[in-house]
């Protein structure tokens, strides 16, 4: 199809403008974090961190409890995602491959659970955790994050398992594998991209979670990074350099995960195991 130069220009021009709009806040975060303080409070914005400095990152990292909170966030997120993957793998296999009474009901249960409004349930959760004398502990956070990502994990893994051709599993069983061997040797390796994609989204959910930790863990030592970041600006006054450095430190793991894993995870879905 032949198009006039103008017709070819406007989509590209719009794309550039949109790219700038979507990328700018992320760029500005890093840019501010790297600029010396005098460039941040300049009457005219300094667009490039020409004389870059790491002093703001130093301020952020030396903030009280920073490393404790990093450890808390990592512990809670990784254990929640790992637990939910283990539990979900069992459930999603049953839902994708086995026929049984009530299967439909279970699927619907997970679909509805996926939409659970956790943000408005924090009061009830607070009282339950308080009655269990578990405030300021990482255990309830881990467990609730696990259930938060569980329905999504179950449903997504189910469609990944369903996408593995039955024939592969069946031929393994014809070759003498038991049901569970067929699963661990044939389905499980093929699920790797699926596992990666689902754990990526689980990781992001848990890493970002804010309302629950806001109400459950008030102790400075028991918080996670989102809570620390939301109060960073208050704690450091108008030190935007340090605030942006803190935001960058918080965002970098997720940005990296996303950029590296997303393509791979999506690619894994579409590249078929059996052709023709």
């Amino acid at each position, binding site marked *: 199809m032949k198009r006039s130069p103008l017709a070819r220009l406007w*989509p590209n021009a*719009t*794309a*550039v403008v*949109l*790219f700038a*709009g*979507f*990328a700018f*806040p*992320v760029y*500005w975060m890093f840019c501010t974090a790297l600029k010396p303080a005098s460039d*941040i409070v*300049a009457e005219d914005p300094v667009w490039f961190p020409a004389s870059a400095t790491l002093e703001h990152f130093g301020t952020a990292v030396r903030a009280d409890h920073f490393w404790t909170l990093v450890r808390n966030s990592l512990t809670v997120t990784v254990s929640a995602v790992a637990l939910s993957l283990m*539990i979900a793998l069992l*459930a999603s296999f*049953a839902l994708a491959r*086995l*026929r*049984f*009474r009530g299967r*439909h009901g279970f*699927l619907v249960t997970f679909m509805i*659970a996926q939409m*659970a*409004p956790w*943000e*408005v*349930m*924090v*009061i*009830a959760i607070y*009282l*339950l955790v308080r009655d269990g004398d578990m405030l300021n502990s990482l255990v309830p956070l881990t*467990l609730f994050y696990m*259930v938060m990502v*569980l329905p999504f994990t179950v449903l*997504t893994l189910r469609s990944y398992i*369903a*996408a593995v051709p039955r024939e592969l599993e*069946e031929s393994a*069983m014809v070759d003498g594998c038991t049901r569970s061997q067929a699963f661990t040797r044939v389905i499980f390796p093929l699920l790797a991209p699926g596992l990666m*994609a689902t754990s990526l989204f689980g990781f*992001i959910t848990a890493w*970002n979670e804010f*309302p629950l930790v806001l*109400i459950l863990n008030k102790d400075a030592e028991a918080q996670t990074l*989102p809570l620390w970041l*939301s109060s960073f600006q208050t704690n450091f006054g*108008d030190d*935007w350099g340090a605030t*942006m450095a803190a*935001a960058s430190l*918080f*965002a970098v793991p*997720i*940005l990296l995960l*996303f950029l590296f894993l997303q393509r791979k995870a*999506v690619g894994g879905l*579409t590249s078929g195991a059996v052709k023709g």
Partner: protein
Amino acid sequence: MAVATEHQDPGPAAAGVRRGAAPPSRTAPPAGRSGRGRRGGAAPYLLLLPALAATAALLGWPLVKNGMLSFQNLNMRQLIQHLTEWNGTANYREVLGSADFWRVTGRSVAFTGVNVVLIMVLGTLTGLLLARLGTRMRLLLSTGLVLAWAMPVIAATTVFQWLFAARFGVVNWVLDRLGWHSMADYNWTGGQYSTFFVITVLIVWQSVPFVALNLYAATTTIPRELYEAAALDGAGAWRGFTSVTLPFLRPFLLATVFLEVIWVFKAFPQVFAINEGGPDRLTETLPVYAFIEGVGNQHYGMGAAISLLTIVILLVLTSSYLRIALRKEEDEL
């Protein structure tokens, strides 16, 4: 993600299993060689048990607890002394009788409506643009979209506070440069509408990538032949769009609208972290209102009643989608 993958889900729908017609006692042939409709006796239930138990204990029970709390008089005194004082429907009568609650409800619905319309329109246009671009430009735009999508909510909130800062904020500088000099030191979080403006820009910025990228992915699954057939029948570009692209994307768009309604309606971190519902509690949406009444003002019973009403409103707003989604799920079995 889940929305897009459903299209590729091959199996169960074709299996044509008659639900309910087959008792589970008809157990599987030993090796399950038949391929279709294997039955595993107790095995499926055992496999599902951990997931169901966790969901019941950590999601179901808090919901029940929330319901119970909403019928209790639970303030600071009762909380500290571990007292359980049932007070019937008093919380509900008070909430439903207060002008505040209805004002916040109306505000939440309007806020959700504006955001979802903006997200869908901009997301769809961006997605269609992605489909039109060459490889290199598409990669560029996708990279920008993925960056915005991946940005953690709280980090983004902090960045937007900086972008819209009264002093040294880039937005005010640009507006000033464009000739709108009264905006030079404008305090965005000082007014109701300007605070909502910032929150809306933030939420739209965060949500458009999901719609755009998934919509683009969906357009790539439209068979080329359909367009060729339409062209043979004399359809132009616009006709091809309305009679091939749109019908094909309809289920996706419908599902996305309702997902976005749910996400925006219960959005808590953005609204809370930008201005904590201020100024003067004028930007509280229902989830923030429940939190501030319940936890902030320590009327836990009242807060629980507001939470439950919020869930009911959310269910009403999304009921038509839920019905469609459940029917679709039924068709798949």
